[in-house]
């Protein structure tokens, strides 16, 4: 395998009962590459991320992280998963643990790292997302945007090689979206390999090295962001992008109304 390839997906098929959600997805993601997955709802974006992380049993194909194959419920999966950080739409911090414990739990218990060292790193990461003062707070005392930043820090503290973001701003109030996206942008600038599922088009355009457009469980279009947003090649991508545009109110009409 090419040494620069971090994640390799080959002919991935996933069905729920008779409903085929992913229908033969193949792509390679290079080290440091930021890939944004776009597509209409129900096209399989989230399922794709869940398959990459082994949260779903797949019906066909393969997912490789470095040389390791991701297999649902396999014995090696917990080990392989340490290389993958995942952040969910609903943050899902552990409600019974403080912020700092949320972050340090897995590094201490799973990776058996030194508690003092992990705590120090967690505090540095919290500082970077401006939440150090919340270290001793419980998740319920934080806003959605704050919780989501903690969830990102929690994943980062495991030193993952690749980060998966599953519509991480979809449940947030508009003014909190920015603080979360800024954290992700900063990660991109540091060279983190990422796959991002989002509906924030401007953000997608800014952060992505490559856009993957999914529809009907297949990759319909794959392009650099400037190409994709200015000159999409397929009709389906054009129709999809059109849904994010609004025609300005017609001036003639407003004049008539006066």
């Amino acid at each position, binding site marked *: 395998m090419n040494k620069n390839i971090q994640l390799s997906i080959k002919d991935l098929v996933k069905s729920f009962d008779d409903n085929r959600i992913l229908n033969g997805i193949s792509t390679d993601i290079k080290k440091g590459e930021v890939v944004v997955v776009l597509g209409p709802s129900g096209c399989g974006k989230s399922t794709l991320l869940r398959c990459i*992380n082994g*949260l779903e049993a797949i019906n066909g194909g393969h997912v490789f992280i470095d040389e390791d194959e991701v297999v649902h419920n396999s014995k090696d999966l*917990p*080990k392989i*998963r*340490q290389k*993958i*950080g*995942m952040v*969910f739409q*609903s943050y*899902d*911090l*552990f*409600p*019974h643990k*403080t912020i700092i414990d949320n972050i340090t*739990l*897995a590094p201490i*218990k*799973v*990776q058996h790292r030194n508690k003092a060292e992990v705590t120090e790193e967690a505090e540095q990461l919290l500082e970077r997302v401006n939440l150090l003062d919340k270290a001793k*707070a*419980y*998740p*319920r*005392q934080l806003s959605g945007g704050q919780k989501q930043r903690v*969830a990102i820090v*929690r*994943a980062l503290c*495991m030193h993952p090689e690749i980060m998966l973001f599953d519509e991480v701003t979809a449940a947030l109030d508009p003014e909190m979206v920015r603080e979360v996206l800024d954290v992700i942008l900063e990660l991109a600038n540091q060279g983190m390999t990422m796959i991002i599922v989002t509906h924030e088009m401007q953000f997608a355009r800014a952060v992505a090295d490559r856009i993957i457009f999914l529809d009907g469980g297949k990759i319909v279009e794959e392009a650099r962001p400037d190409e994709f947003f200015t000159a999409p090649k397929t009709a389906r991508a054009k129709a999809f992008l059109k849904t994010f545009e609004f025609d300005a109110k017609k001036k003639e009409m407003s004049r008539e109304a006066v």
Partner: protein
Amino acid sequence: MDWNFISQYTPMYIEAAKLTLWIGVLGILSAIVIGLLCSIVQYYKIPILSQIVSVYIELSRNTPLLVQLFFLYFGFPKIGIVLSAEVCGVVGLAFLGGSYMAEGFRSGLESVETIQFESAESLGMNQLQVMRYVVIPQALAVSVPALVANVIFLLKETSVFSAIALADLMYVAKDLIGLYYMTTESLFMLVLAYLIILLPISLLAVYLERRLRYAGFGN
């Protein structure tokens, strides 16, 4: 009220209370272990075992403790298993309590959302670690009120032990009434003895619930 009588027979009540507590504690601890195992079997829907557990739970919850004790004490010797009254008490209490405890644990386990598993798994935890650090602490916080109610319920159920000739509190009280007709004094001491055992547990329960809610949901 004959206070002399009361002070004379207080040691008997203390002995009986010790026996009641001793059997109660052993029975309840066994019930908690049985309940935890049953709830995990049902939670993971382990084939065959989970059907057996379902049958056990229905059997145990839908028969009175007295009948279960008779079964153990008078029925088992017929198939060659002779158990002492003390052992019957512990086994009977564990058999009855196991199902109540199982239901209490189950309600807690089911209250933890799937996404909590997934976010713990995605941090590289194995099944055991997910249960230990993420699921069970949250489940317990939800279960504790039900579990404590079960403990109190089971301690009160020990009052039927006298039927299989166990010298528990109820037995002593009935004995004294039979011997001396000191009904008021005997029953007064009986009520007092149960209150002395159960009230601290109830108060501890209130405290524990508050603490666990704090641990569970950070408030």
